[in-house]
């Protein structure tokens, strides 16, 4: 039986915090707030006291626990690697269990209490086809994560008329000598950006892989983890493990950084037989890199007119050490002039329910990103996570920039399908004004 790890399951990890305070330098929420409740050390002290039954749950405790982007930045910099992001998930589940009210419900309560936010939300909702929204399963992360965030300008209109499942059968055979690839699309790609899913599947098809795309897969569970909804996480994990056990696959690839963390970290967040499933999970960039795609692309002649492009590290790839692969793939593209962005690895500020409960802080973190982006002078910014794409677009709009946000897969796909005529790559990209 698969179940969530409880606070008790994390006891040993919680006790490994030595209170050094190094997390203060790396937490995007702390850098905004500068209060101990925002930072990992404070949360771990509370978690320890909760385990020992030494602290009463109060409004500030709940508030402090909501003040976490689950980005994992503190974990990689922690001398003892205490998995605070996972522990905060467990605390949130514990708080939801105790109070019977999920943090998201509380967060949404906070939004509806704000007139300006409500106005924007209402505008946005008017633009959504209710029919489309109904098709999204109730357990989907989008219900928790995107509708509110989506009020910003172009997000909601992006709800696609057809979702990714409508485009592809469950199984597409390829070269029998090549591995079978399982595709885990995730909610963002399935419902908001099905074209990213199409690029992903078509790149793999071009390279000759067989594709298994189970239509009964669900959300990765990250938004539910963020919201502290334990029962939903368990349901989703069981559903996904079952879906991918219907056919033998060699890899389960993701094109969304959060999904990669959500389904790849199960041995760290769940108790039960999840190891086999999670061990197959790989980010598509890592897979393509391992296949040497960047070498093939580098061998192509460089285009005479190139676009200036930068890259934003999604936290959920960066904290898994995946920073080199997307960059080298982008740098290998013939029509790209790559420009590194200052603090490319700092969080964009979305952070699941964080952006709902703490919209202003989320916007401030986004504004820092926009500032660094502006300095690069890039016309395009690529990233590897639909969540980051939404937040980056929002930050760009707020800052009045004209940079185009795209998924790395879109560029890879354009190049691969038009290698005969590299100069056409520019035409194929979303239109922006370039003077060349």
């Amino acid at each position, binding site marked *: 039986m698969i179940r969530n790890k409880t606070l008790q399951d994390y006891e040993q990890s919680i006790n490994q915090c030595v209170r*050094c305070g*190094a997390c203060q330098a790396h937490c995007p929420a702390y850098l905004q707030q500068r*209060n*101990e409740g925002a930072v990992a050390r404070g949360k771990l*002290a509370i978690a320890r*006291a909760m385990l020992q039954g030494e602290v*009463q749950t109060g409004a500030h405790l709940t508030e402090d626990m909501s003040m976490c982007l689950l980005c994992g930045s503190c974990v990689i910099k922690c*001398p003892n690697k205490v998995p605070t992001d996972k522990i905060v998930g467990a605390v949130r589940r514990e708080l939801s269990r105790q109070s019977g009210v999920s943090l998201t419900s509380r967060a949404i309560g906070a939004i509806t209490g704000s007139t300006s936010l409500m106005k924007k939300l209402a505008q946005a909702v008017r633009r959504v086809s209710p029919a489309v929204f109904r098709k999204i399963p109730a357990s989907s992360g989008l219900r928790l994560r995107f509708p509110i965030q989506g009020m910003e300008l172009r997000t909601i209109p992006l709800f696609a008329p057809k979702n990714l499942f409508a485009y592809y059968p469950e199984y597409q055979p390829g070269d029998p000598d090549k591995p079978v690839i399982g595709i885990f699309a995730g909610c963002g790609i399935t419902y908001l950006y099905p074209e990213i899913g199409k690029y992903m599947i078509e790149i793999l098809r071009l390279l000759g892989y067989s594709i298994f795309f189970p239509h009964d897969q669900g959300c990765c569970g990250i938004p539910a983890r963020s919201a502290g909804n334990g029962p939903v996480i368990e349901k989703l994990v069981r559903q996904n493990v079952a879906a991918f056990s219907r056919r033998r696959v060699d890899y389960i690839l993701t094109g969304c950084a959060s999904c990669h963390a959500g389904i790849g970290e199960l041995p760290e967040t769940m108790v039960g037989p999840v190891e086999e499933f999670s061990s197959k999970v790989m980010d598509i960039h890592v897979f393509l890199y391992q296949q040497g795609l960047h070498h093939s692309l580098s061998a192509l002649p460089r285009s005479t007119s190139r676009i200036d492009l930068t890259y934003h590290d999604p936290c959920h790839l960066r904290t898994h050490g995946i920073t080199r692969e997307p960059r080298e793939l982008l740098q290998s593209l013939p029509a790209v002039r790559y420009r590194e962005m200052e603090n490319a690895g700092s969080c964009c500020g979305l952070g699941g329910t964080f952006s709902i409960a703490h919209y202003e802080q989320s916007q401030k973190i986004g504004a820092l990103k926009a500032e660094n982006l502006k300095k690069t002078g890039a016309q395009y910014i690529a990233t590897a996570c639909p969540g980051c794409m939404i937040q980056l677009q929002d930050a760009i709009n707020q800052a009045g920039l004209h940079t185009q946000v795209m998924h790395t897969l879109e560029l890879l796909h354009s190049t691969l399908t038009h290698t005969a005529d590299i100069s056409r790559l520019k035409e194929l990209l979303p239109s922006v004004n370039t003077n060349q």
Partner: protein
Amino acid sequence: MLNKDLLLSLERIVGPENVLTEQSDRLIHGYDATQKQYMPDVVVYVENSLQVSEIVKLANQYNIPILPRGAGSGFTGGSLPVQGGIVVVLTRMNAILDIDEDNLTATVEPGVVTAHLQREVEKSGLFYPPDPASKEFSTIGGNVAECAGGPRCVKYGVTKDYILGLEVVTPTGDILHTGGVTMKNVAGYDLTKLFVGSEGTLGIVTRITVKLLPKPAAKKTMLVQFSSIDSAARAVSTIIRNKIIPTTLEFLDATTIECIRGKTGLPVLEKCRALLIIEVDGDQEILEKQTDKILGLLTPLGILESRVAADHTEAEAIWDVRRSVSPSMRKINPDKFNEDIVVPRSKVPDMIRALEKISSTYDVPIVNFGHAGDGNIHVNVMVDLQQPGMQATVDKVLLEIFQTTVDMGGSISGEHGIGTAKAPFLRLEIDPATLHYMQMLKKALDPNNIMNPGKIFLETSPEQLAFPTQLQDDPQ
């Protein structure tokens, strides 16, 4: 239970949203890097010196302790609310008010993170040298309170050498201005020096003017391996005697090397028993000469291997060896007693030998590394306190370490401060008359003993430790 009127007054001063009283709020403002936990009565986040002044006056009125707090990353308990009270958090007073490129000074609020200040002044080609290991998160206010050091202090000195002027809220709530913004200033007593390193017991610093230097153009890093601590120590004194002051001169002893063996990117030789990391800075042309000269001096001393970093990446690889120490040490034993003794430079080998002897006498691992260039040794006694009688053994070990340090003409703390952790040992180093003078000063400036009480001076001396206790503490 906190007085209701006091609470209302605090809310009036800083606004209700900045006064925290929930149990979880108090819990998370009652610890520091010593991992000790106390419970304050109330936590207040402040924004300016006027608020601090009013809060201190209230604390006197209600006779309740007041505890300044920055990043809470101290190693000796300086910010712990050992007697409860009001924790005043200064992290939001984090403005850099001025960087003066003409006079080479910067004026900042105490909550500015040290590394942030360094990055900002470096944008103008300037340099704030003190670099405690915690610089990425510790605040400049905390650095001033503890007089923080760091590896670069060999060449550049410690925090007190860079503080020109302070704004201080005294224990009675007055706002003082010490020193100024000039290099030279002898008007009246040097109160600046009094407050730097006073561990928050004499007041709360609310504004700091620091001296800056021109940023060195470049630096060069080298790693030298030795077959014995003696040859490494000879190397250190040879370098200094030849009038070369490196920026940093870090050493790792044999126990430390055993911890990191096999865990470093750069190879550590089988026969290596001591390791020096030497960094020099300055103009590029001078650096080449300096590294050549250092290698020329060291080669006859019998080094196993030397490696000079060709670029930044290689320098980082060398520093990674040093950085690998702390994480790998935890594998020896779960509990670490982290001391920062300092002895005259020439005594470092004697001290290391004494530490080895203490380690074998009491059969506890002691891992030593640190700043060989200024004699500041990080002594880490690694134990498992779950073992019966271990705490008593640790007490004896620490006492012996400190006594040996003092006997060699050293100090029980180079850069961490006394706080609560080293208070029991202060008498080993400071003679009764001097200690009494310090306590008279404290009493004169803080008559109600509300400013960070219970620090530096022990109120009652623990009898289990056989100290020379001729001088009785004033009960106040």
